[in-house]
């Protein structure tokens, strides 16, 4: 059945893989292998994750007390701005597509590489350049505009390195455009024989939808940020009312991209979760086609709801009504996905391995994040909740509870494929629990704070908000440990972890049919696909898959 199974782990042919195919710096920095580029992304993106994480901890420490006593107001503003910029533009947007997507898209569809390997490498360099600009800005004083760069604050009044940070985001935007371009072309043109559209794993569908957003949205925010930089340097007056400009125009252009960008962050996470649920319940995802089309529906509808960020901006109340209605509609495909994942478990063979714990955490937290999102889309409530901690809690439930949970789940699931080795499951489960508990303790109190009326981006606050803020800070410290642990045991496993074998989870899917780690061109022979995705009945894995159980 699976030709990869004939490769014994200890056979010499299995030892020739993408990792040991050259060790020099050049072999990495000039590589065109999508798997190596994925690893380059993994290291750089993780760097930004921890930079953003340190900023978050500083904020939580400051908010332990109502008086601003740890940081200056100005410092606090720079800290939350840099937290947002590094997390959104340099962690969340590239995390799943550029790391897991880069690694898996060709493997999952049976291709030797992405369609444009050089452009793929270029996109990593653009990311690094963009990141370098932003880091430079951070070291030379940072910015105090918030990650949203609202005008005219960013163009006329803000201090700090707005130009450099904006330029960094602008450049990184092209990195994401090129990744999206590569994915779309690869998925269209490079599928293995027999890999029809409806045999594609759902991770591919969701990355396809994500890529469409990257292609259609990113150029708009790129040109908008360019206008902000030009306006700041030359005082063009485009967004300055004193010069005849319209500051709210910026918000329209910005959210036209940045709302769909939310789906850039969460759609790939949904794809990962679909893979995890199918693999660890050993069942096809319930209603495969509906879940696939839901991704596309979310991508398309996601472009029509940007105005729900502007209900109190003075936008016409009729426009707000339309945006609110569309927001309700975009919730439906997400709700359907949640129900379908849950239904997949019914009569499944559910494993309790670490990746599945993350998938479960994702569904629970994303449900809360999604429901509170629809609440915020309801006009009458948003007026009160807009720009309060309720918003902060909501999008952290989606971005951290959703995307990061799925990202970590995916990393645990594919780690044996990426490195050929497996981490210590005990520590992985401990960390999954810490992340889940720490996350809820950090962000649930913020829902209550928000309804009580605590505005976001406040450096000092009214005393009655303190109890909940202390809880939140306590949670953040647990969450921090939960995130540090994987960094340690993953690094440890790369050298000392046990050999994982080609298919430790007993999963179907092309990526599990090649050796671990895969050879440079992925497959020893071009695979021919004869089954639907997740068809566990006709393609029962021949090797006894022990999963993590073998190690405990």
């Amino acid at each position, binding site marked *: 059945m699976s*030709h990869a199974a004939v490769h014994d782990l200890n056979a010499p042919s299995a030892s020739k893989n993408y990792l040991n195919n050259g060790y020099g710096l050049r072999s990495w920095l000039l590589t065109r292998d999508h798997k190596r580029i994925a690893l380059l992304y993994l290291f750089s993106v993780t760097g930004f994750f921890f930079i953003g994480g340190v900023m978050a901890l500083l904020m939580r420490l400051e908010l332990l007390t109502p008086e601003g006593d740890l940081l200056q107001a100005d410092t606090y503003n720079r800290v939350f701005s840099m937290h947002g910029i590094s997390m959104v533009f340099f962690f969340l947007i590239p995390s799943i597509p550029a790391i897991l997507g880069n690694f898996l898209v060709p493997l999952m569809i049976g291709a030797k590489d992405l369609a444009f390997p050089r452009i793929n490498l270029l996109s990593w360099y653009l990311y690094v350049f963009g990141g370098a600009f932003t880091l430079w800005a951070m070291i030379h004083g940072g910015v105090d505009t918030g990650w949203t760069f609202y005008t005219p604050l960013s163009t006329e009044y803000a201090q700090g390195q707005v130009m450099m940070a904006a330029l960094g985001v602008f450049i990184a935007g092209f990195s994401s455009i090129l990744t999206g371009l590569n994915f779309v072309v690869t998925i*269209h*043109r490079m599928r293995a024989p027999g890999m029809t559209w409806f045999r594609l794993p759902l991770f591919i569908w969701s990355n396809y939808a994500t890529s469409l957003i990257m292609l*259609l949205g990113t*150029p708009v925010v790129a*040109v908008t940020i360019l206008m902000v930089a030009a306006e700041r340097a030359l005082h*063009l007056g485009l967004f300055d009312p004193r010069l005849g400009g319209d500051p709210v125009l910026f918000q329209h252009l910005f959210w036209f991209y940045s709302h769909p960008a939310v789906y850039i962050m969460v759609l790939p996470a949904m794809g990962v979760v679909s893979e995890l649920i199918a693999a660890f319940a050993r069942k096809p995802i319930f209603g495969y086609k509906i879940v696939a089309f839901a991704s596309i529906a979310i991508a398309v509808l996601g472009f029509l709801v940007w105005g729900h960020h502007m209900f109190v901006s003075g936008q016409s109340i009729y426009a707000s009504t339309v945006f609110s209605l569309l927001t309700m509609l975009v919730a439906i495909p997400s709700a359907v996905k949640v129900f379908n994942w849950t239904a997949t478990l019914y009569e499944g063979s559910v494993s309790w391995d670490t990746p599945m714990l993350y998938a479960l955490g994702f569904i629970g937290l994303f449900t809360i994040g999604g429901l509170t999102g629809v609440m915020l889309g309801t006009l009458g409530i948003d007026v009160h909740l807009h720009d309060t901690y309720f918003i902060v809690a909501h999008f952290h439930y989606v971005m951290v509870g959703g995307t990061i949970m799925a990202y970590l789940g995916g990393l645990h699931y594919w780690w044996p494929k990426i490195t050929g080795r497996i981490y210590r499951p005990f520590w992985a489960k401990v960390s999954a629990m810490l992340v889940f508990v720490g996350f809820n303790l950090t962000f649930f109190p913020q829902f209550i704070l928000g309804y009580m009326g605590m505005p976001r981006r406040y450096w000092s606050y009214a005393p009655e908000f303190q109890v909940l803020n202390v809880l939140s800070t306590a949670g953040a410290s647990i969450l921090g440990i939960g995130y540090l642990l994987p960094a340690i045991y993953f690094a440890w496993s790369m050298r000392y972890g046990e050999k994982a074998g080609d298919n430790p989870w007993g999963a179907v899917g*092309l990526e599990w049919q090649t050796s671990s780690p895969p*050879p440079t061109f992925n497959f020893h022979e071009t695979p*021919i696909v004869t089954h639907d995705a997740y068809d566990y009945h006709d393609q029962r894995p021949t090797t006894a898959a022990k999963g993590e159980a073998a190690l405990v």
Partner: protein
Amino acid sequence: MSNPALGAAGGAAGTAAAGHAVAHHPDLQHHFDTLEQQKDSSSLGMWMFLVTEVLFFGGLFATYVLYRLRFPGVFAEASHHLNVPMGAINTGVLICSSLTMALAIYAAQVNRKKAIVGWLLATIVLGATFLVVKAFEYKEKFTHHLVPGPNFDPSQFTPDHARPAEMFFSLYFVMTGIHALHMVIGIGLLAWLVVQSNKGRFDSTYYNPLEMTGLYWHFVDIVWIFLFPLLYLLGYHAR
């Protein structure tokens, strides 16, 4: 899942280890199975890229249209300061350059390798002409104190027209400037193509880079076809 026998037959390039064992075109990259797949991929990629370009310019056009609607009179007045003959000449130059670009591709299709170089050089000359004319226009704006910023002389307009007029020129410079940048990149690509075709790399079996650059060049041309009436001509009759 994959039957080894079928797999070998299905994968034209064979195993990775076998690599180039199967004779194929020197320009076929490793990870593609056939030249046709490679060509399809790059043309789809280029179209996708052009879609992002449309949206990139779209943001600028949207901003322009919005302010044009907000200050219709001032924008019409300010557009009278643009040099319509120069813009018209440039429009003609660009349309001709699209033709020469198309002829270069045609030359490749009929295997006339020298003609490829000739038409490419013609395209470069026309592109450069456009940029030179544009440079003269920019210089003219500078000497007339119409460049936004310290150079701008608001006294040419009634007091409350000066700001929107300056905004018109800001948009003019941003939009034509980004367009000109695209021209410069296009000329760079063309120069690289000239070197490659001199080596005789392109013929009727393989002229993919020519075709892709051609798509890009036509797109840049079309952007100008929109810029010219929007910036120069709208409200021109009102003089």
